[in-house]
């Protein structure tokens, strides 16, 4: 077991190079603090398609196509495509994979799917099963609302703990070889259920899972000092605060190092309440905010912790609590 550090951290034999990446997003995301940093902005939520679901699929396909074009390669050079989204039976990703015509694993990790995909892609590369892999995830505010909550036109007052599903997608090409930035290791998350039942309060539900994964990594690697940031996926303002307190109880003071993609993507003025969420949240923020900084050398090393609430509308209605997961990947500047 020489590819393991400590108890739970997977160390890749060679870094999985992030050779190219692209992000697509909607208007609201572009009006936020990260505006102007996305590769393509959809002019409206439908973007000439017959349904929001089709628009979401296009968000993802565009991200993948732009990432491929940036790299100067075509989809048939991808040895394995990994991805997922929030739609029933992850159809947006499967239709993207249909277009790509590549070997494909559909993943469902809710909003942790990007980190899950990066971890698995790194594993495939490290194991020698692939030379080039692609990871893409997406979410769309309207498809998520109508599937998981209320009809989009219904006049409801959103809970203060509720989060706003990000309309956006990110695609990442991971390769063997030489490069500037890469994924070097990661932690596979455990399901942690802290008994939260309120499906309008995902941050509270997911905080415990994030803490478990962050502690697993820090216990194994003891390198809090060399990490620039620990970036959680979509805990939102409330979950972020809880996570910070819980980490302190476990002996890790991460006050200035803990960031959350759900808090970075929207402005407080944008009335999203607790922040952003969705598979597209960490996917867009990683590509629009963190990777450029890693490429430029402003950052050296981050731990991305994708957080996912693995509930379904049926399980909520049957009174089950929310099983949550967090997958961690370390992304480093390599030179």
């Amino acid at each position: 077991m020489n590819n393991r550090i400590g108890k739970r951290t997977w160390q890749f034999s060679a870094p999985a190079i992030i050779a190219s990446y692209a992000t697509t997003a909607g208007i609201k995301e572009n009006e936020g603090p990260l505006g102007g940093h996305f590769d393509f902005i959809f002019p409206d939520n439908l973007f000439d398609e017959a349904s929001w679901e089709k628009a979401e699929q296009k968000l993802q396909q565009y991200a993948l196509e732009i990432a491929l074009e940036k790299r100067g390669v075509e989809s048939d050079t991808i040895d394995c495509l990994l991805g997922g989204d929030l739609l029933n039976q992850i159809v947006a990703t499967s239709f993207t994979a249909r277009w790509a015509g590549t070997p494909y694993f559909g993943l469902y990790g809710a909003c942790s799917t990007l980190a899950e995909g990066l971890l698995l892609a790194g594993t495939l590369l490290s194991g020698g099963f692939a030379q080039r892999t692609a990871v893409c995830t997406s979410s769309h505010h309207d498809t998520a609302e109508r599937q998981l909550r209320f009809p989009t036109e219904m006049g409801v007052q959103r809970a203060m703990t509720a989060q706003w599903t990000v309309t956006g997608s990110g695609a990442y090409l991971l390769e063997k070889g030489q490069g500037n930035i890469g994924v070097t290791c990661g932690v596979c998350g455990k399901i942690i259920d802290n008994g939260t039942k309120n499906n309008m309060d995902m941050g509270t539900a997911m905080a415990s899972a994030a803490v478990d994964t962050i502690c697993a990594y820090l216990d194994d690697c003891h390198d809090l000092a060399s990490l620039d940031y620990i970036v959680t996926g979509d805990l939102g303002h409330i979950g972020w605060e809880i996570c910070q307190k819980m980490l302190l109880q476990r002996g890790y003071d991460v006050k200035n190092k803990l960031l959350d993609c759900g808090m970075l993507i929207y402005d407080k003025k944008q009335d999203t309440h607790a922040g952003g969420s969705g598979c597209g949240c960490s996917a867009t923020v990683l590509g629009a905010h963190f990777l450029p900084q890693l490429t430029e050398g402003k950052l050296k090393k981050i731990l991305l912790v994708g957080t996912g609430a693995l509930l379904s509308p049926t399980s909520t209605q049957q009174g089950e609590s929310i099983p949550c997961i967090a997958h961690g990947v370390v992304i480093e500047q390599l030179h």
Partner: protein
Amino acid sequence: MNFINQKNKLLEREKALANLKTMDQAAINQMIATLKKEHQALAYQEASEKNNDRQKNWHQLLKQNENQMSLLNQYAAVQYQRLVKSTAPKVPVLANTLRAFAVGGGICVLGQLVINYWILQGIEVKTAAGFASVTIVVLTGLLTGLGIYDEIGRFGGAGSMVPISGFANSVVSAALEFKREGMVYGIGAKIFTVAGPVILYGILASVVIGLIKFIMM
């Protein structure tokens, strides 16, 4: 990437697609590969174009590309259907029709018997019909709960679905199914999932007929 060039390429392909039936598989595969390659390049062009109008123009080319691709996909699907047709299991239309006739007719005979019973009890003919509907609905609800109507439906097909008993079955079965999700979001929200269209369009149809009657008078 040149816009005019790209546009011409699409136009040329449009002409080639008119003779799709004469093309061999290798040529079609080649075309699909080219379309994919162009789509990727067009998406990138559209994304990197800062001018709004030009961006829309690129988007139109992209849509044309998608239409051509879907034409090829449809063609492939039709080819595949030819292969499928010879292997798909045949639906026993005659047997199904006879069963539906027997079961549907049987339910109607039962309904008539119930009407006659209520008339014998001294109830007016028009009211007796209403009483019969209620009786059949209650009976079906009971049989659905006991799992007997499921069997009748399996055997009778449309024959058990079309009479009022089929309507009762669809409501009661939904109620049974969704009780686990609670009284509000379960039964409350889902009880009419199957019967909903019948209720909505039944009421709509009665309004239309009422209007026609009103105008004719």
